[in-house]
Structures are given as C-alpha cells and as structure tokens.
C-alpha cells in the first residue's frame, strides 16, 4: 500500500484539460517534491488529493482509501496547507488552530503541549492572541503549517508551504516535516523552489501539461536528464524539451 496513489487522474475546467491521466505513487516515509511550470496541474493534483476537487476520471487514494468513495476515511490521514490560504480572519491564532484540531475531533488538552512547542519554534508565541487577519503572509503560512502538523496526519499535502516564511521558519519547517516523516508520515510538497526541493525532498516528480514526465530520486532524475548537475538544469531540459 502506498501513502498516496494517483492512477490515470483526469480533471478539466471547461475545455481546459488540467490533468491528462496523471499517475504517481508516493510511499510512506518519503518527502516527495512535485515540480512543474505554471499551469502544469500541480495544484489541481493536490486539490484532488485532499478532496477539494472531484476527478473527472481516474483514482486518488490516500493510505489505501479512495478519496472520492471513502472521502472521510481518506481525509482522516491528511493535513493540508493550501497555496492561497483564505483563513477565518476574525479568529485569533490560537482559536484558529483549536478550531482545526476540534474539527478533527482532537481534544485540546491532548495537543496543547505540541501547540505550545510549535508556537515557540515558529516564533508565533507572541501572536497567539492576534487575529488571523493581522498576520503577514509568512505568519499565516506558519499557522497553517502548525495546524497541519498538529493533527499528526499520515500524509502532509502542502502547496508552496514556505511562501513568505523567513529563513528561520523555513529551517524549522523542514526540521518538523523531517521529524514527522521519521515518525512514519509522508510529505507531498508542490513548490517552485527547486534548490529547496533538491536539498529537502527524497524523491521528485516533474509534471507538465497534466502528465508526469519524469520521476525518481534527485540523483536518478539528474542522471536521466543527460547527467545534469542540478535539479534546475534537469527541470529546464525536461520541461523545455517536453520530456
């Protein structure tokens, strides 16, 4: 069983085909980087994974559960950080995160210690009583990452999770994701930060025009792309030559 299994996924927006039979598998304990040009279908893939979009065809499974047919069972294992976060503006940071954990049926007393720990690590302790609308983009991102980590999901689905984060928070983010992965979780991260993906992810998938055009460990994709020296070089070769 894979942590994430996407088989022949198709999704269109009117006449625009965003995904054209995408297939990818991510195992437990992996940090998988999904990269690709704008409009390649990365965000659509992630939204299908977390049940925000229904596929036109194909299957999406999380921990062996079909996201469409067994939505509730599948999403019990998911923590999500969206690309353009719209949050509950008039809740305080603490209330927002309590709200998320409460929706998951978690008792606050069970997660409070971890919450305090994350607040301290992400330097958000001083903002716990601030309204979400008062936070900067980077701080909002930190709150969303904390919420996703706090529910201890088996699969972390994150769309540009480090957007706006300061370098220290980026470091903490990577440390915490690595820790979650060591505990058995899987992280699927979509990003345009190729340097970060190269150093942080254990495997990478390059998506273009709704297809997965290359996949493997960082070394494997570098080798496959005519011995490229960096992921950026791989990306430019593969995407500009259509794979």
């Amino acid at each position: 069983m894979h942590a994430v299994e996407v088989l022949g996924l198709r999704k269109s927006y009117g006449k625009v085909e965003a995904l054209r039979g995408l297939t990818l598998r991510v195992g437990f304990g992996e940090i998988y980087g999904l990269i690709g040009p704008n409009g390649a279908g990365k965000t659509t893939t992630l939204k299908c994974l977390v049940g925000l979009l229904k596929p036109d065809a194909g299957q999406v499974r999380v921990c062996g559960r079909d996201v469409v047919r067994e939505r509730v069972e599948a999403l019990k294992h998911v923590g999500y950080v969206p690309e353009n976060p719209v949050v509950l503006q008039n809740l305080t940071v603490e209330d927002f995160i309590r709200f998320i954990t409460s929706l998951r049926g978690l008792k606050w007393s069970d997660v409070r210690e971890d919450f305090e720990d994350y607040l301290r690590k992400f330097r958000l302790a001083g903002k716990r009583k601030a309204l979400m609308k008062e936070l900067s983009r980077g701080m909002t991102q930190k709150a969303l990452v904390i919420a996703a980590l706090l529910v201890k999901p088996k699969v972390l689905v994150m769309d540009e999770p480090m957007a706006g984060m300061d370098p220290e928070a980026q470091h903490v983010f990577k440390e915490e994701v690595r820790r979650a992965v060591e505990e058995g979780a899987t992280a699927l991260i979509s990003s345009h930060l190729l340097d970060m993906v190269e150093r942080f992810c254990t495997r990478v998938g390059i998506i273009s025009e709704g297809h997965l055009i290359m996949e493997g460990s960082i070394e494997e994709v570098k080798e496959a792309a005519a011995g490229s020296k960096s992921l950026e070089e791989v990306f430019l070769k593969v995407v500009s030559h259509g794979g």
Partner: protein
Amino acid sequence: MRVSRGAPGLGLKEQLTVMKYSLKDTAINPVIRSKSGIAYMAFMALGLVILLASLTLGSGPNTSEGMPMSHDLRAFLATYGLNRFVITDVVGSVLTALTALTFAFASPKVPVREAEYELVLTQPIEVRDFITGKALVSVVQQFIFLPYVLSMLVFALFLAPSPAKALLATTSLLVITTYFALLDTATNIVALALAKRGLRKAFRLACLTYLIAGSIHTAMLGRPSPLLAVPLKPLAASLIYSLAISPSTAEVAGWLTLSLAPAALMFLLIPPLADTVGVEDLKPVALPGTARREERAGKGGKGAYVLKGLDMSSPDRAAMSVIYYSAILNTSHLRAVTAAVGVPVAACLAVRYFLPAWVAGVTGFALSFLIPFMTAMMLTSLLNAVIVNDLMTYWVYRVYLMRMEPVAKALLLKIVTYSLEAVAVVAASTTALTLNPLNLLLIPVTAPAVVVTSFASLALVTYFASKRKIVKQSPSGMYVMESSVVFLVELLFIVAFIGASAITQVLASINAALLLTAAAVIAVVVGAALTLALKEALAKLMERYDIAT
C-alpha cells in the same frame, strides 16, 4: 540611459482607463465570457426591447390613469390625504435624512479592492484619477446592468400613468441610485478630509443636529419640514411626479433635469476632494462595509465581542460556534438588530401618535412593498457576506471536518436567523402601529417560508460557487448576475411573506388569537422539520459540488 516606460499623463485619460478595465473586470467579462451569462443578458435585453416596443406601439399603460393597480394605489393613498405633494415631501425628507446619515457615519477610509490596491495603485497614476475613475464606474454600472434597468422599468410600467412617464420614472430611479453610488464615494472622502483636520466629530454633530432640528420641525408642523424636504426635492419630485396623473410630461422632464444637479454635484466634489487622499488612506478590503467594521473592531477588544465563547468541544459544536454563534451572538450584531427593530418601532409609534391619519397608508405600503423588498435586498447582501466569510474558508471544513452537515446546518440556521430578524422588524413595527401584540406571531408564522427560501438561496450560491468559481475569484462575494438570480429567489420569500403578513393581520384584527397561535405552533413545527430535512439536502449538495478555494 534606460528610460522607464510609461509616465503620469493627463488625468482624464487615466480616469477613463481605470473605468474601462474596472468595468471589464467587474461587470462585463463575468457576463460575456460565459455562455450562460450571454444567454441571460440576451434574455434580459430581449425583455427590455419587447417592453420598450410595447410602450412605443401603445400596448403599455394607455389610459389616462395607467394600469388598474396604479389607479387603485392612487385612490388608496388619496383616502389618507397622501397626494403627490405630500409624498414628494416625505420621499425628499427620507433622501435628505439618508444623505445626512451617510455623511455623519461615513468611514474616513476609502475602500479599494485588493487587486486594485496592489496592482493599479503601484502604477504611476494619481490617487485622484483612480478615485474619479472608480466613481465613473459606479455611474456607468447603474445604466449598463440590464436586469436592474428592466426591473425598474417594470416597476415604473405598473405605476406610471403613461409610457412616456414610465420611461421618465425609470430614468429618475436610475438618477437616484447613481446619486447614492456617488454619495458613497464622496462621503468617504469628505470624512477623510475632515478627519485630517480634526473636524470629523464636529461635522457628525452638525449633521445629526440638522436631522434632529428637521425632525422636531416636522413634529411641530405635522408634515415634513422644508429643512428635510427641500434639499433633495428634485430627486423626489422627478420620481413621484412621473407616477402622478396631473403633472405634464414637460413638467416631469423639468424636474428630472433638475434632479441631475445633486448627482452632478456629488461627482464634481470628488476630484478636488480626492486630491487630499493619499495611497495610505485607501483601505484594501473585500467589501465596502469591511473598512467600517474593521475600524470598529480596531477600537474594541478584538475577538472579545463574541458573547458566547467559542465551544470547541466537538467538531459539530466547533463548526456551529464559529459559523453561527460568532456571527449572531456578538455585540455589533445585537446592536444592529436592536437598532433595526427599535428605529422602525419608534417611527411607527410616532406616526401613530402624531400622524394618526397616515397609519393605514404607512402600514399598507410598508408591509406590501417596502419591507419585503428591503428584506430581499438585505438577504442577497447577507449571502454575499456568507460567501466572503464562510465559503471562502470552505477548504478548512472540506479537509479537516470532512462531513458537511454541521457546516450546512450552521449556514442554514444563520440565514434563517437573519431572515427572521427581518420579519421581526415588520412584526414589531405592525404591533407598534396597531398596538395589537398578536401581530408578533408573524415571526413564527413565516418560519416555513423562511427556511425554504434560505435553503434555496444557499443551494444556488453553492451551485454558482462551483460553476463560476466565485469563491475564488470574486472577493466581494457574488457577481452581479448571481446576485440578481438570488434576488429572484428572494422574490419567492416576498410573495410568501406578503401572504403570511396579510393573513396574520386579518386574524389579528378580528382577534382570532387561538387560530393564530395554532397556526404559529404548526408553522414552527413545520419550519423545524424542514430545517432538519433541508440541512441534510444542503450538506449533500455541498459535498457534491466542488467549491475550489
């Protein structure tokens, strides 16, 4: 040397550019870039053409008194001494009072859409030109939105005595709405200019003093004071005279020409006043009202306004707490409801004691048209707020809550509560006018209709959100087309409401307390059963349709 492309130019060109792209973004492209939008507008345009053709070919109101309904209305109003002069004075007074109140309570922040704030205002364009361009947009929007024009024309056709006067009445209504659109912009800028000089409170006091003086003078005279009736008389006269029999078309056209003056004055005020506005005075917000709300929130204890603490003890309670209780049980909402009930009740009591001859006329007009119309308008705007505040964060529920039933239940109850509060305004006002408390039973009697229309509105909004991605792309809630379709649904509520209020009034007047109480109990039971059934249906709809955030 490298030369930057583009440089500040003449104001008019920038103003027209702002107008052109803003109109494309908010009014034109949302309609013409979809087949259903084009079909809808074509349907509306066809309706407008047919109506205009029927007017010119004489199949419209062609008697000297217009359609039977307008004749009956005039006869009814005349019974209570409400001729066109009195009604013009009343309408003029209301318009003046609204203007004074808008000036008194305007926010000293000029609201701007986020995209415009980020993109347009970082271009080499004067803030004055940007604001003037946006004011032009608000003017043009009044005239190009066909469903809006069509609804006004239909309204005018029913009430005007001739086709020519129906057209004049429609134009007059458009001028009035244009005036208020410009007033909204102008008052923000005036408030800002006054705040910078430390004169805002004094100006507010002056506006309120003027209103109080006008009200006292009205009470002393037993009719609207010239202090209130005269300033905006042209706006009122052009509308009321176009619906009256005696004034000639030329006379109405004269008043209509004069009515352009207040709107023109507002427009001319904007560029020089906007010269005092800096980019830091512009507030990037989703909704125009948000600036005012945020300003108030900044003064008060953030988050502490929720009377009932957030209950996070279970997923269902958390959803209910955040979606429903935090919206309903907060001091600003309770203050608004108290004012919404208290002011009309006070006005109705004043009419009852000072102007007893008007009681029947005021009751009839308010219950049969004004209040249901205002309620439907209010509900449409509340649905916009639901989109902005609740559906934009829909991803949170889809990903972390997973079941939609608690969300559907909280949203349904929220809209039902807002609707019943609107009904409470009518019931309390009627009770004040008649001093018969049985009229309060109107609130439970309308419960089933309220639940059904609330469900229908939310279901439509969910559907629109999935089809047009309005949650993602419209920062202010629904686009105009969606708003108008939802408004049509609210018309169902108007019909049900008018029926329920008529029956309630009849039963209250014959003192059928037992019958009315039984009807109220049955209605509450039916309403509760409907809520239970429809919340599940709504949850299924929400699960079925994608609302990409």
